[in-house]
């Protein structure tokens, strides 16, 4: 059912693209400047890591804290890569490109397909579509953010909070206690520690036997 793969890939690409608008606007409102915001979408190309990076810079955090938070947010991409390597088996330069296109969406669409051919197609199409729409939207958001001013007026800070909740939601079912402790640690740490540290402390929670299902 290749036509179904194409439409799923494109709609996921478009949906994620719109979310890129808010990244562009939030990034430029954080004072990063359009070139830095665009470099994040082109080179880092990993939504949660990009938002973490920009959030910490906006809150006045140190560059090293921003780098390490973005880095930690990206751990799961390694595990997508492990799966995708066996599914699409890219060689040479294709492997470097496949790694760059490895994000939540491309892995999810690929994993949802049945035949190996569709799994391969789903990865490349979704990865490519997300990359194109995400970067186009980032540029538009960054430019519009500069034109129209405040992130708050347009509710983009509310959109970003909702976006994180939306990413977390499907994972809550099996990890409610862990998410609760992670949120609580952040809540306590925000007023007590420098910007960026609350997120790092939440990462440590994942290593402790909290809400464990072995």
């Amino acid at each position, binding site marked *: 059912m290749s036509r179904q793969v194409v439409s799923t890939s494109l709609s996921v690409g478009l*949906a994620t693209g*719109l*979310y890129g608008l808010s990244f562009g606007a939030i990034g430029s409102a954080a004072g990063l400047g359009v*070139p*830095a915001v665009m*470099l*994040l979408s082109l080179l880092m190309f*990993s939504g*949660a*890591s990009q938002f973490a*990076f920009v959030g910490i*810079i906006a809150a*006045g955090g140190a560059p090293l804290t921003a780098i390490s938070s973005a*880095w*930690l*947010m*990206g*751990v*799961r*991409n*390694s595990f*997508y890569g*492990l799966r995708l*390597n*066996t599914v699409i088996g890219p060689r040479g330069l294709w492997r470097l490109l496949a*790694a*760059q296109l490895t994000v939540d969406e491309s892995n999810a669409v690929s994993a949802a397909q049945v035949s190996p051919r569709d799994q391969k197609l789903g990865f490349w199409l979704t990865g490519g579509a997300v990359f194109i729409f995400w970067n186009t939207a980032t540029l538009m958001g960054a430019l519009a953010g500069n034109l129209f001013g405040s992130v*708050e*007026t*347009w*509710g983009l*800070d*509310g*959109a*970003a*909070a*909702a*976006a*994180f*909740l*939306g*990413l*977390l939601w499907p*994972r809550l079912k099996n*990890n409610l206690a*862990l*998410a609760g*402790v*992670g*949120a609580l*640690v*952040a*809540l306590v740490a*925000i007023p007590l520690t*420098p910007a960026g540290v*609350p*997120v790092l402390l*939440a*990462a440590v929670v*994942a290593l402790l036997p909290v809400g464990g299902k072995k």
Partner: protein
Amino acid sequence: MISTVIFASLAVYSWKILGFLIPDRLIGRRGRLIAERMTVSLLAALVVLQGFSSQSVLVLDARAAALIVAGALLAMRVPYIFVVLAGAFVAAGVRFLGF
């Protein structure tokens, strides 16, 4: 700032390429579990950070309303993109009304 961005991007890319380079049998079930757990706790912390803080201070404002509406929509299985849009709409609306 540009060099910080490039360095951070390389750091994130290192995870991506790592998955394509190491043999699956070296990771195992435990490694996969830790990755899933880390994603959950980081996202939970980011919801709190993005929803309830401003410059190292805890605040309760229009974003809390956005999160409540987003949670309700997610529970009703509304597609992701509409949840994000509703977050913007509610936060902007609540501010417009002067809260």
